[in-house]
């Protein structure tokens, strides 16, 4: 325990800005999670591993001499097809089944992804250098890497674009119709199978964008996928399905929590704190609902 952060206001500003910028990134992943959960009723444990895979695509570009920021365009395109392929291979068989089946099946996918990434990219912690420099604020006492600002900006851009796409386009309408009532949508001529594939592909593409941004702002490692899954799950259960402003706000809240936990508890407990927060949120909601004799559904 270290409460130095409360004695130094600049440290708090630093942590808050870091947390909010990071949180926007988490919100982008969580949006994908909410999308597939709402439309297909599956919980994807491999979400975080899709993110990391997207990150490695940007990292590969970096190794090839291309600026990794281009990853935010290339990575989602590749990841869209990865997502569709994954849907065709496995996910389409778990869509109508018990949620636990989808949790376990995607857990299996997550293990496969982790291991394959470990083979291909090695077990080292890597980062793609964007060389964007840093911004100094408040007499150089707060430092913000420009890559973080860039990543938050891109996240917001993509999220807004996606919202507009979901509202205006034909596919977006079909996706929303399927989410509301898959059977009715089918009767009215929506090819739900295609909609599901596209939804999973869009989710994977969102993961790809987030991964590319993570590759320049944070670090990549084959085994760090699961915390991203848990973070996005947490944001979704706090914000609810299909409520984008709430997703953004709770994402930032989570980012703040993590940065402060990092300062107060120490970096070694950071991931542990994230998982404990998940447990606390679920238990809190359980007690809140049980007052009305209800439960989380």
């Amino acid at each position: 325990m270290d409460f130095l952060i409360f004695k130094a206001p600049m440290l708090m500003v630093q942590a808050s800005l870091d947390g909010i910028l990071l949180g926007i990134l988490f919100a982008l992943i969580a949006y994908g999670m909410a999308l597939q959960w709402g439309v297909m009723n599956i919980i994807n444990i491999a979400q975080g591993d899709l993110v990391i895979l997207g990150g490695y695509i940007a990292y590969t570009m970096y190794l090839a001499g291309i600026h990794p920021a281009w990853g935010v365009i290339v990575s989602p395109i590749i990841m869209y097809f990865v997502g569709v392929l994954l849907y065709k291979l496995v996910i389409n068989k778990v869509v109508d089944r018990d949620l636990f089946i989808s949790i376990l099946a995607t857990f299996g996918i997550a293990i496969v992804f982790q291991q394959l990434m470990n083979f291909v990219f090695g077990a080292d912690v890597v980062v793609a250098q964007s060389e964007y420099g840093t911004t100094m604020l408040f007499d150089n006492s707060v430092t913000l890497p420009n890559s973080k600002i860039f990543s938050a900006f891109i996240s917001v851009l993509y999220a807004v674009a996606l919202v507009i796409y979901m509202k205006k386009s034909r596919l977006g309408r079909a996706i929303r119709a399927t989410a509301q009532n898959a059977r009715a949508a089918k009767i009215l001529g929506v090819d739900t199978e295609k909609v599901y594939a596209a939804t999973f592909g869009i989710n994977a593409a969102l993961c790809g964008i987030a991964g590319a941004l993570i590759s320049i702002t944070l670090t990549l490692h084959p085994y760090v996928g699961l915390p991203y899954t848990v973070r996005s799950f947490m944001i979704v259960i706090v914000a609810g399905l299909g409520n984008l402003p709430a997703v953004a706000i709770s994402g930032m809240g989570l980012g703040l929590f993590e940065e402060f936990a990092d300062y107060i508890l120490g970096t070694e407990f950071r991931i542990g704190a994230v998982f404990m927060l998940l447990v606390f949120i679920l238990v809190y909601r359980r007690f809140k609902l049980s007052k009305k004799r209800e439960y989380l559904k």
Partner: protein
Amino acid sequence: MGNIKQKDLILYSGLIILGLAAPYLFSAFKVQLTYLCVLIVLAMTWNLQGGEMGYNTFGNILFYGLGMYLTASVQVGMFFPLAEWTESGGEKTFVHTTTQYFQGIGVGLLVAAIIPAIVAGAIGYAILGLRGHYFAICTLGLGIAAGEIAGGIEIIGAGQGFTTPPFPAEIVDNEARGKFFYFLSFALLIGTFVFVKYIYGSRFRLILNAIRDNEDKAEAMGIQTMKYKIVGWMCSAFFCGLAGGIMGGLIGYIDSTDVAFDGREMGVFMVLMAILGGKGTLWGPVIGATLFHFFKEGLWTFILGWQYVALGVLIVVIVVYFPEGLMGWLREKYPERFGEVIDEKDRKAQVELK
């Protein structure tokens, strides 16, 4: 147990004799056999949760890891300062005498059984109020958080691990060590099996099944579901803690995320084994665990480096194509064997409908 049929009696005594003779017959595989016993115990206790109660938990690994750390800590802490032990890596400076070792492991296992059960009881009220996938995700988080937190606590070795006391120096014989742990785990297996079999014949199982099938209705019928859910989880925790304690002693080295709170391996294995064999049956988890263990041991050596890929594919295949498990498949095929009466006309009518 007066109502055991003659056929069953032969089966059970045959299995017990096989179990007792196994370390002499296959003396090179004692460690593997010990693993098998522990895996069966974990699968059977998971089945109480996931199969009978319908609460699919990833969190039993929490009790397993807790039991592991507790046994080792008690075994060391009873005779030596724990902090210095973990500091020095447990080598040379402190040596357990034979009596100390066995006293330590005895008390350690006792603690490792009781504390996890108490922990399960304490957190049960909060956690078991969650349903379905929320429960699954919450317990998944709990297991991983435990691993991360244990990896940051200095006194139990933090990230560098905790060396459990080596087998007493006076009995350097490797045979004796292997046999000791094998018989310990075999005793645990028999204890667990008898207990689970007892539950299968009791009203408790019916209540658990009622909770699985429709919790709201069970509650409306006047069953205090929460009470039974907590008791069920405490039973699982009790045996998981013991299994963890034995495994800690056998492996000889405890790492927070790779050995104790090993959600990526053990935590998934127990779910997989129970599903492979068939959830909600007495013999399903036993058969599932045995098959899985043989498969794993056979496979792991041939495809070195690719084990996890194979494991992941295996999970997907079992879960997606084989969710009813072996026993479920057999039940579908030979329902008479399971005591289900089938109306031939009805069956034909159903076939025609398809």
